[in-house]
């Protein structure tokens, strides 16, 4: 271990920090946006709605993130319909592909979490809401979802850390986020322990900050009486 290389590695790895954070936040957001419709459709009464969504989730959860990233980055470019579409300028950028791949991946996992959360809400609550004259949409947004999201909040905090770890794969499609920047510097200095340790420490710090953030949100959104009961 050379302390000197350790110090010179810090600014170089930090150059990738911005991309790591960007991919993490955008992919997490995308994942959360797609997760809710997926979860609701996976519970739909019609088999025609349920089946495609369940297959989609099964395929995403059953294959490695790296394959999904390659399908989006390398595969999409070969499809003429995509090349000629308005989405091409977006899909041409490796950064966008990484966000899309990590985001869709996280969306499928989060959908499963939400589905589990939705199952826990007693049917009686929904029936009561309907009896009180709420529309189905109203009951969902006012009764069901606030409870579901409060329940899945701890695992959602876990999910964003998984997304952060997944963002390292972006280096496989030339996006120089932290892992990619660290690897490039290792091939120059030949000091893997120093450089990767720097990257590892920064990842741990981000992870710690994110879990603190989610714990804060948990505390802020907890129902006071239930919070004192459980703790």
């Amino acid at each position: 271990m050379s302390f000197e290389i350790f110090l010179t590695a810090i600014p170089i790895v930090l150059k990738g920090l911005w991309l790591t954070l960007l991919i993490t936040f955008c992919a997490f957001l995308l994942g959360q946006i797609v997760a809710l419709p997926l979860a609701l459709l996976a519970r739909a009464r019609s088999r025609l709605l349920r089946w495609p969504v369940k297959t989609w989730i099964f395929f995403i959860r059953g294959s490695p993130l790296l394959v999904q990233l390659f399908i989006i980055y390398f595969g999409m470019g070969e499809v003429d319909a995509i090349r000629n579409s308005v989405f091409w300028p977006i899909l041409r950028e490796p950064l966008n592909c990484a966000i899309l791949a990590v985001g869709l991946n996280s969306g499928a996992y989060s959908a499963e979490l939400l589905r589990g959360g939705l199952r826990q809400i007693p049917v009686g609550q929904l029936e009561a809401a309907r009896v009180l004259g709420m529309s189905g949409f109203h009951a969902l947004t006012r009764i069901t979802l606030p409870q579901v999201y409060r329940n899945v909040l701890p695992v959602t905090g876990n999910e964003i850390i998984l997304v952060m770890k997944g963002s390292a794969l972006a280096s496989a499609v030339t996006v120089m986020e932290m892992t990619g920047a660290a690897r490039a510097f290792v091939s120059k200095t030949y000091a893997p322990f120093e450089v990767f340790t720097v990257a590892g420490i920064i990842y741990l710090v981000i992870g710690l900050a994110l879990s603190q953030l989610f714990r804060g949100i948990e505390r802020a959104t907890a129902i006071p009486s239930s919070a004192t009961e459980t703790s």
Partner: protein
Amino acid sequence: MLDMIWPYLPQFAAGLKLTLLVSLGSFLIAMLVAILAVPLIMSGPKLVRMFLGGYVQIVRGVPELLVIFMVFYGGTVVLSTISGSYFEVDALSAGIAALAAVAFAYLLEILRAALISIPAGQREAGQVLGLKRHQVFSRIIFPQMLMRALPGIGNQWLISLKESALVSVVGLEELMRHSVIAAGATREPMVFYLLAALIYVAITGISTFLLRQAELRLSSGKQS
């Protein structure tokens, strides 16, 4: 399209074999070490407990790819220093070591949680009945720990299998690497990456089915 895939099938079969070897090998090694380490993290010397706890926290908090790079490049540096000349680590052993290092951290945590969930009365009852300490562990605690941990262990197997694709990045010619080669040679990435994805989905699908059977059998045994 089948004409295009056909010539690459032998390579895909060889890649699949290597994928199974890397993921199964790393998973079994990690499982074995985790079983040996779980008594240590519970009641070993304080220094050992702190080291294992810290290891679990660190490995679970950094990207798997970073651990793989660390083992691969780090292993090369260590071996080169020892041998005195450039010595690149074998991608297969480095891959297995790296994936095992990651899976170990998760499995240790899964086993620890399962062990904690077993009521202390079980151990006390075993001791009162005259069983020796190691008998209490191997006959009473251990089987229950494995049973409670089974869903988590199964889940970790699926994760290990999918993570094995990451080793292709450092050049191990497993399933993923072969699909990259075929995609490059034919300029048909969509076909070959989808094929690779399908193979992974098939293995995880079969694994999920078998795990569910095992869980059903174990839980029915518990009731009778």
